[in-house]
């Protein structure tokens, strides 16, 4: 009897897992069909020397790890570009995450003109997308007014007589640690970049804040929690899973727009060195995935899920 019971339980759970598998089958087919092939091809390219045949098509000569060794030992700028890209990423991610959470909380309150404000904060999402960005690139170079880029900002700060160096000096004289001062000054200098890079994150956070049941806030109010306590005990834990999403998106976004990807792209399509380009893509993708795995695991440990 006991055995029989166990057996039926097993098949039930297996049945359930089968049903769950059905949900992801379309994606699995798509992945195997469209992505796996390109992953294998990229890997293959990275291990070989690719020459494009004159009539179309290509030939591969297996060279082993030569491309990897070349990228790290001999290539002029790859290492530098890689480290600066990763460094920028690590600086930007916490700034953008906290900034967008703050703005989302401001926008989530009820106030007059909220629709207008939300529409304005949505604009960076449109402005940062490819087609408009390409069209804007031409216009940005001719734009005189407005804060269109970090370059314009620097020019403006010079013309308005505000010297960044002066503030750095002042704060370091106050005895603040130099690393912190440079981080803050760098963040302030890039404020327009940060604002423009956090449109997507703000929308994700607004959705997250709205999925918190209002009964939780009622309970907190009845229990006499202050606004500060409500934030740390209700809002923050409930938003935590979405902080992971935002971090993942921010890391990927800053990676996709980083110089490493541009370098890999140029190596492939201007220098026609597909093998080296694939190597660069693989190295940077692996590093980004590694960073993601560490960060996500770190946050996930502190995250509350229902199951």
């Amino acid at each position: 009897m006991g055995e029989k019971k166990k057996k039926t339980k097993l098949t039930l759970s297996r049945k359930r897992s089968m049903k769950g598998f059905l949900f992801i089958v379309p994606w699995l087919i798509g992945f195997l069909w469209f992505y796996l092939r390109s992953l294998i091809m990229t890997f293959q390219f990275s291990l070989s020397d690719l020459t494009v045949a004159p009539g179309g098509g290509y030939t591969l000569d297996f060279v082993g790890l030569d491309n990897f060794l070349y990228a790290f030992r001999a290539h002029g700028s790859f290492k530098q570009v890689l480290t600066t890209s990763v460094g920028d990423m690590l600086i930007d991610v916490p700034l953008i995450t906290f900034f967008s959470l703050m703005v989302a909380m401001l926008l989530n309150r009820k106030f007059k003109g909220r629709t207008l404000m939300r529409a304005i904060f949505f604009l960076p999402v449109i402005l940062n997308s490819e087609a408009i960005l390409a069209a804007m690139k031409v216009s940005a170079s001719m734009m005189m007014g407005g804060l269109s880029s970090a370059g314009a900002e620097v020019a403006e700060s010079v013309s308005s007589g505000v010297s960044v160096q002066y503030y750095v000096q002042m704060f370091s004289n106050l005895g603040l640690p130099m690393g912190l001062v440079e981080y803050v000054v760098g963040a302030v200098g890039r404020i327009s970049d940060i604002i423009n890079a956090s449109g997507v994150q703000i929308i994700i956070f607004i959705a997250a804040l709205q999925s918190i049941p209002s009964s939780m806030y009622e309970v907190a109010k009845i229990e006499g929690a202050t606004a500060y306590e409500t934030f740390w005990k209700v809002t923050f834990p409930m938003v935590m899973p979405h902080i992971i999403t935002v971090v993942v998106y921010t890391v990927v976004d800053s990676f996709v727009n980083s110089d490493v990807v541009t370098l890999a792209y140029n190596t492939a399509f201007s220098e026609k060195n597909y093998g080296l380009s694939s190597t660069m893509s693989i190295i940077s993708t692996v590093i980004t995935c590694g960073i993601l795995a560490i960060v996500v695991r770190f946050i996930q440990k502190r995250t509350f899920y229902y199951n």
Partner: protein
Amino acid sequence: MDKVADATKKKPENDELVPVNPKGFHLKKMDVNTKSKITEGFKGFFLGLFRWIVLIGIAYVILGPVLGILARSFFSDADNYNTMVYMIPQNPTMERYEIAWKTLNYASTSVSTIIYSITLMIIQVLMCSMVGYGFARYDFPLKKVMFAFVVVMIVIPTHTIMLPLYMTFANFDIFGIFGLIMGSSPNLLGTVWPMYIMTFFACGLRSGLYIYIFNQFFRGLPKEIEEAAYVDGCGVWHTYFRIMLRNATPAAITVAIFSLVWQYNDTFYAKLFNISDSVLLSKRIATLGSTVGNVYRIYDPNILQLYMDAGIILVMLPLVIIYVLLQKQFIEGVERSGIVG
């Protein structure tokens, strides 16, 4: 009995603290109440003020370039070279819009682009939410490996998958079936089909990210909802469609907005699959400047720029309108908040 005695004992202590006069006692209590009300009012006022200052400051940084473009799109040639003119044109003209409208073939192209983006958006939301739900709520062998592949899909730079995708759709075939029926495998490049096929298999533009968003949202929902549904005799699919998807409305709207905007503005896949200019606005805006220059014989890049500005505003407009409409759903989501279905 003891309690009563205690109460009587405590009374003298209380009397020491509050004025003996009952009227005075009453007054003092009122005072405290109004005081707290006043401080709260002040607090609310300053918090509101602070919020507005921060929001307006940030909004200025965002709006600066957009306002510049908007203003310049009304500039006439003379305004453009008049250094006295800033933001407000002296001789405003609609000519930029007229020509940009004609060159973009705006009426028909924008409608077809919106139809294209909205149909893809609906497929994205349905497929990605399904996959995200499968990952969030079920256990099956190799789940972790598969989810790692979703992350790889998000991270991998798009140009690395260009070549295989191009080859797949240039000779589109499923196990040689089409080749057997029609004699040769069809070339799908130049049509919109590759995009629909990829999106249907949850591998479209940034699908990995949408799967991730849905996964996180479904994980954040309490399990009791589903259990209640099962107890009430709901099947798996019914539970997903009628209950889980409705509870994930904020996520669905978020994904819908992103998918719409990115699809609308996508140039990468549009170029890769060589989708025709008459379908997509994003491809037209890229060539607007040179087309206007060639057709209307305008050789001054500064003047051409004004046409580009008008074009950018025209391209952005539908998205802003759709967002404002969709975000009303957002607000309704709050009022309904909590568990529904």
